[in-house]
């Protein structure tokens, strides 16, 4: 569904990705693991065209995304939930959802405000509250809900569990499982196994801007040596 090969990305003159690769099949949840600064966020931003990749290919459903404008990439059916959440703080929760809304597409689950609220009941009483007055967890839910409103076929989640209490992380895990059951494909960038350990089918591990390990989620959970090497020490 999405295939990246040899992706190089620069921030100014500092190179952040060195020939990164990724292969995501329809209906999978793929974890993108690695420590801070390993290049996970940059990889997701490169897919979205927010930080343009300078080399390599990024193919989504037979279309080359590299060099394309961000809004077109989004309209092909890729939802993006950034690490900083980037809620529109001037807009209310309902308005944030409205900005994310896009026409439905035949090959993706269709989302309405009602369905999104059903998925995140906590947002229901907050609909008129301004995005700037939400807690971290609420912002995270809104960021996911907002991208779902675009009826994506694939969703890119950048560290959704960051800064969240364990209970909220579990809820987030249940949510991802449910989205998967509805046919949504997901890439989940995480520093830890807190969330990824719950839901990932397969995992890619990044270090210093390149993919250094890949395999099934089960294999990674079993491989304590790899865990220690790539995630911690």
């Amino acid at each position, binding site marked *: 569904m999405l295939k990246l090969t040899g992706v190089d990305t620069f*921030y*100014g*003159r*500092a*190179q*952040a990705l060195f020939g990164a690769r990724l292969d995501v099949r329809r209906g999978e949840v793929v974890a993108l693991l690695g*420590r*801070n*600064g*390993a290049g996970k966020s940059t990889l997701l931003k490169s897919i979205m065209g927010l930080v343009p990749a300078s080399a390599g290919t990024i193919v989504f459903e037979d279309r080359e995304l590299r060099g394309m404008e961000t809004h077109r990439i989004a309209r092909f059916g890729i939802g993006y939930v950034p*690490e900083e959440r980037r809620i529109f*703080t001037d807009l209310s929760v309902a308005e944030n959802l409205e900005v994310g809304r896009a026409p439905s597409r035949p090959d993706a689950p269709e989302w309405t405000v009602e369905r999104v609220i059903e998925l995140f009941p906590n947002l229901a009483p907050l609909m008129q509250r301004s995005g*700037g*007055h939400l*807690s*971290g967890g609420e912002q995270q839910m809104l960021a996911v809900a907002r991208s779902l409103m675009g009826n994506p076929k694939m969703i890119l989640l950048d*560290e959704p569990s*960051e*800064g969240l209490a*364990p209970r909220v*992380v*579990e809820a987030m*895990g249940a949510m991802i499982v449910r989205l998967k059951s509805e046919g949504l494909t997901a890439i989940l960038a995480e*520093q*830890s*196994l*807190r*969330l*990824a*350990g*719950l839901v990932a089918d397969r995992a890619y591990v990044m270090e*210093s801007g390149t993919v250094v390990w890949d395999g099934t989620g089960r294999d990674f*959970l079993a491989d304590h040596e790899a*865990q*220690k090497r790539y*995630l*911690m*020490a």
Partner: protein
Amino acid sequence: MTLLAVRGLVKYFGGVAAVAGVDFDVAAGEVVALIGPNGAGKTTCFNMVGGQLVPDAGTIHFDGHEIAGRQARAIWRLGIGRTFQIATTFASMTVLENLQIALLSHRRRLADPVSSIKSLEIAAARDLLAQVGMTDRAERQAAELAYGELKRLELAVALAGEPRLLLLDEPTAGLGKSERGVLMSLIDRVVQTRRVAVLFIEHDMDVVFGHAGRVIVLDRGRVLIEGAPDVVRNDERVKDIYLGRGAVVAC
């Protein structure tokens, strides 16, 4: 002897506590690593010590002075030099001029509108340049340097103020393996020859455990644990935040 003493440091961003009551010390000549996951509050702590941010609560004592909330330029004059996550130098100037300006500022000679800078502080600037191994780059414009060289120049600029404490925000980020080695051995040498204390944020654990005398782990705005590298490396709580074992077990 305690050089830097941070107590009860707090900083809010839009109602969320990025740093929620942090205490730590750095002794003279000590090398301390500050680690923790994204959003733990490391850079925010740094920016409060360096004067780029004003704390919402807490005290920062440096060498007998209370520096919390003071201007960055005043803090620098007290003897704290720093580098930034994204290497920052004066891009339009040559390498040598970058160092001259820092040295001139240190000697309070920047108000002079008449002398030509060409001949000022040249010897001291070249000396600093030699210390970071960049003598052959003196006349290059900073904008033309490779990233590794830029980081070394940034370090040299920070040293121009003869600091007793260096704050290094991710010194090896954006560098390849070999460049990392060069930079870290440079920092080791500086620590030995100048007896300067170093507090650094770092994600490369080889660098952390290879160079730090003590490690402070931050998580969600608080100090989770601090101690010798071996103690920290084997602490279950540290494993939890990095590996998320709690969640795996719960599953």
